[in-house]
Structures are given as C-alpha cells and as structure tokens.
C-alpha cells in the first residue's frame, strides 16, 4: 500500500511527459537545434519553480511526512565526471531522443522499439559499473 502514492506520481509524470510531447524525438531535435522554446519552457518552468520551492524548504526547514527534515545531499565535487559523463549522456539523448524517464513512457505509449533503447541503457549502466574504477572521476 505504501507504494501506491509512487505509482500514482509516476503515472502523473508519464501523462505530463506524453502530453507535453517531451517524450518526442522530434522535440529533442528541435531543442538541440535551438529552433523552438518548447523544451526550454518545460524544463525552465520546472527549474524556476524548483529553485523557489527548494529555497522555501530550506528557509522554513520544512519536514517530510515522516517528520524528518528534507535534506539535499550535495553531489561530490568533480569536474571530469560531470562534463564527460554528461557529454556521453548527451550523445545518447540526442540520438535516441529520450532520457531514461521518457524511454519507459514511450513504451507505455506503444512505441515498443523504445524497449531496445531501454534494455541497452541497462547494459550501459552495467558497463559503467564494470569499468567505474578505471574511469577518471
């Protein structure tokens, strides 16, 4: 039962992603070609509201529903891993037109070939796990 809320949030996420067309390869291409405001509007709105909300949480020390403080664990300091990892991610994002969330929304939407992309994203994650210690971080 305690998982139902996450199932519900996930469905809302899926519907929003699909209806906003953020799961469309065409929209991602348009974004990387800077030919429309569409994707920037979606991500930008989320970030602006996010910045305001996170600031409020910190200022008023808002707690979660367990009563625990909401903490933001800072990511480790590094430049290489974020730029290099990010760039590899970006190559795949532009090629497949989907980041991990939209991949599965696409599968639900009926684009079953996105299952191939998702499966290989798992393989990619596995390869990272295998080669992690040899990579500069």
């Amino acid at each position, binding site marked *: 039962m305690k998982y139902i809320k996450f199932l519900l949030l996930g*469905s809302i996420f899926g519907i929003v992603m699909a209806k906003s067309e953020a799961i469309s390869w*065409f929209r991602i291409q348009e974004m990387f070609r800077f030919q429309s405001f569409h994707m920037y509007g979606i991500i930008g709105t989320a*970030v602006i509201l996010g910045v305001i909300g996170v600031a409020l949480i910190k200022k008023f020390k808002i707690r979660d529903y367990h009563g625990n403080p*909401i903490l933001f664990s800072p990511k480790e300091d590094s430049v290489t891993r974020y730029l290099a990892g990010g760039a590899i991610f970006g190559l795949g994002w532009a090629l497949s037109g989907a980041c991990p969330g939209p991949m599965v929304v696409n599968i639900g939407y009926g684009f079953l070939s996105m299952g191939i992309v998702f499966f290989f994203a798992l393989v990619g994650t596995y*390869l*990272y*796990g295998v080669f992690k210690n040899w990579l500069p971080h």
Partner: protein
Amino acid sequence: MIAGIMFFLLYFGQSFGFSSNLRTICAASGLGNRVKFFDFNWRKQIWNLMFLVGAIAGGFLAKEFLSTDGPVQISQATISDLGKLGFAAPESLQPAELFSLESAFSVKGFLILAFGGLLVGFGSRYAGGCTSGHAISGLSNLQLPSLLAVVGFFVGGLVMTFIIFPLIFSI
C-alpha cells in the same frame, strides 16, 4: 507539474532521479554478485521502481484516453533540417524512420537504438544523474555539479546533432 512531482517525492522522503532505476534493476537482477557497484540493498529503491511502473502506465493512459494523436507541431526550421537528413515531417510523436518496428529490426536501425541507449545508460551513471536528477532536481538546488552535467548534456547533444547526424543519416 514536474516541479510539483519533485516536491511530492521530497515530501515523501525521497528524491527525484529516474536513472537510478537502471542501477536498481541491474542490482535486482543479481548482478551485485559480480560487480560491486550493484551490490547494495536495492529493495530501498522499490518506491522508484513503482514510479517507473507508474510512468509506463501514464504513457499508456495518455495514449488511450487523452490522446489526439496528431503530429508533433515542431518548427518549420526543424522539419526542413531533418528533411535534409532523410526524415519525413512528423506524423505522430516519433519518426517512423527510427521507431517503427520495421526500422528497429533492420541492422542500422537496431544499432542506432542500441547505441543511443548504451550511451544514455553509461553517461547517466558516470555523470551521477540524468535530466530529472541533474537538470531539474540538481539545478533547483543550485548545485554546481548539476550545472556542469547539463553543460555536458548539451555538448554531447550538439555534437551528435550537428556532427554525427550528418554522418549517419546522410542520404
């Protein structure tokens, strides 16, 4: 809406980051025995897997009950640029040239989808997050690493779009 989802997850004591699921699924498949990176208590991440299942259901609901299923209204400039690479103007959300089953099971089509997925999976874990974790959650918290990651996303995306696409999709 997306920010709202992030706040609900924070309120439920979790955080918004979708690509962690990829690692969780690897761990749940028993790969932790072989690779230490996947040796962790993945059951704590079941909430996120539920979010993933919900996202699939959401895609289905959007298609079945909320869809007008028209072509994506992308800009004329994009249609014309993609036309030069051999892509027809949109007829639905995704180009048939890449995502029709016929294309997906051709050698070239399969390799494109497979490489795309491989890069996304590898890159998101290397960078420690994807669009939801870095671009949305991370930037909302004004984290420098997330800004770097987003710069990386665009470096990769632009290289793919402007340098590699003309090579692989040249007619």
